[in-house]
């Protein structure tokens, strides 16, 4: 049997290791923040400073005044919000059908959605580019919304499936016994119960759409550019404007981080449920 001192030593060791991991995982964020508030002289000086001697928000100001960052934020927001809403509605209806009905072809259709998760992004990128050109939606927000739905929709059907399966059907049945029809049971009983899960799924979709780069870089132009692509354009021929780039980075991660922290508990439950039940 282990002695208590040995146990305590183990605890301390674990604490040190956890601290090391956290430093490793968090340091890059500290570093972009520090970079974004350093004046240029310090950024490209002879000595690397771990705490800026002078703090300046010049880069942030420049980002909005001369780089028109607010426009890219708006583009990202439009694309992310529309993608989130459409995906959520489509996925919820499909997942509801899969979990609450038994019908011929159900398994096949579920498999179809499942294997869509496996499609390589780059495989769809090329035909989507050609198709959007034909449809005349290339370089519009619509192009990005459609492109993002290719990966958010199958994934969310799967995610919502997991949530709905764990939601007892008995409440809806009770409502139907009490005289609700199925539609009323769905709206008045099912949706309110599902709300936290829908929020978590919505946050996930929003994050994916907000963070996407590969499609956005090909399917948008100077007008419809999203934040991620705009950040990349700060890498110019004359080198990289690191202060502005990191400032833009900070601005772009803050909204998703806040959303993630509010939704993380439910989201983590949903993401891990599929893997755990095996």
């Amino acid at each position, binding site marked *: 049997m282990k002695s208590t001192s040995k146990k305590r030593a183990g605890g301390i060791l674990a604490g040190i290791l*956890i601290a090391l991991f956290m430093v490793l995982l968090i340091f890059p964020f500290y570093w972009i923040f520090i970079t974004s508030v350093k004046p240029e002289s310090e950024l490209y000086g002879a000595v690397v400073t771990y705490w800026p001697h002078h703090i300046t928000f010049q880069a942030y100001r420049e980002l909005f005044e001369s780089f028109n960052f607010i426009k890219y934020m708006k583009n990202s927001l439009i694309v992310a919000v529309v993608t989130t809403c459409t995906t959520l509605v489509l996925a919820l209806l499909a997942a509801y059908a899969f979990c609450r009905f038994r019908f011929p072809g159900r398994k096949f259709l579920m498999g179809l959605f499942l294997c869509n998760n496996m499609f390589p992004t780059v495989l769809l990128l090329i035909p989507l580019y050609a198709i959007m050109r034909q449809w005349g939606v290339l370089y519009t927000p619509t192009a990005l919304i459609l492109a993002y739905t290719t990966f958010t929709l199958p994934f969310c059907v799967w995610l919502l499936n997991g949530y709905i399966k764990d939601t007892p059907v008995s409440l809806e049945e009770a409502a139907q016994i009490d005289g609700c029809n199925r539609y009323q049971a769905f709206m008045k009983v099912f949706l309110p119960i599902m709300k936290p899960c829908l929020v978590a799924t919505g946050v996930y979709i929003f994050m994916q759409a907000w963070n996407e780069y590969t499609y956005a870089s090909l399917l948008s132009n100077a007008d419809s550019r999203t934040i991620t692509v705009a950040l990349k354009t700060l890498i110019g021929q004359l080198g990289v404007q690191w202060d502005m780039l990191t400032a833009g980075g900070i601005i*772009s991660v803050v909204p998703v981080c806040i959303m*993630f922290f509010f939704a993380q508990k439910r989201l983590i439950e949903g993401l891990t449920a599929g893997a755990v039940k095996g």
Partner: protein
Amino acid sequence: MRKSKQSRKPISISKDKYLWPYLLVAPALITICCIVLIPAVKALVMSLQNYDLRYSPKDIHFIGLDNYRAVLGDEFFWNSVWRTLIMVVLCVSLQFLLGFALAVLLNRNFRGRGVLRAVSMIPWVVPGVLVGLIWRWMYDGNYGVINDILVKLGIFQHYYGFLAQPDSALLSVILTYVWQGIPFFTLMILAALQSVPHELYEAAAIDGANGAQKLMRVTIPAIKNSVTVSLMLRVIWVANSVDVIFNMTEGGPAYATQTLAVYIYQKAKAMNLGYSSTLAVLLMVILMCVAIPYMIYSFRTEEDL
């Protein structure tokens, strides 16, 4: 799914309600057909054409397997496949080992664990572009903090251009991916570890099992499935990833970080859509070797729906 099998009959189904599930699935299904299945078929078709946006549309026609023949003779293709393989193997195994270690550490009872778990997820929440760019800045050969730390610790004598040298660029990119991927594994493995019933450990202890035996006989069998799924998903994800690499090195220097996904992306950007489709189809065939076992596995576990 908890232990309840939920084998209860779903709400009574009469004939006329048979239509409902199809109506509910239809919008999602039609969307998927339009934006995933049709494009996927189109990719196959394009891979058989000399589809190049620099040509006028009437010059685009079928050229049989010419693209495939060209790809198989393309030195860049084989090199990029090789690099993809190295990257996937190294990334996924390191992500897994470190993620596993962190999960085991976090699987203790201490105050603030929830907060730490959430904080450790941050690299996963951040856009890939930014991940690539942050690390590019930290690796910088003139002002990079990694160089500064290594020199201060006396490990390096001089600053070194990690991403500027073909020898170190791929490894540097791989380490970035490892950093980005640790949270995902930690999350999955932690959830699996927490689902192992405590009684199993107690029973093992009563039977006289030591720490290693508990690990081998209780923990590993219990989390095997979840680990397998996570590994397969990660392999596919890393092999497909463009954003991090492209924003760190754009495939350079001297093609040292040109993975197959990056090569496809570059060819597509150069408007040679036929050739890049061919590459993409081949990437998909390679990934199928991983994805098909995953799908069969998922299907089996969905059996008890």
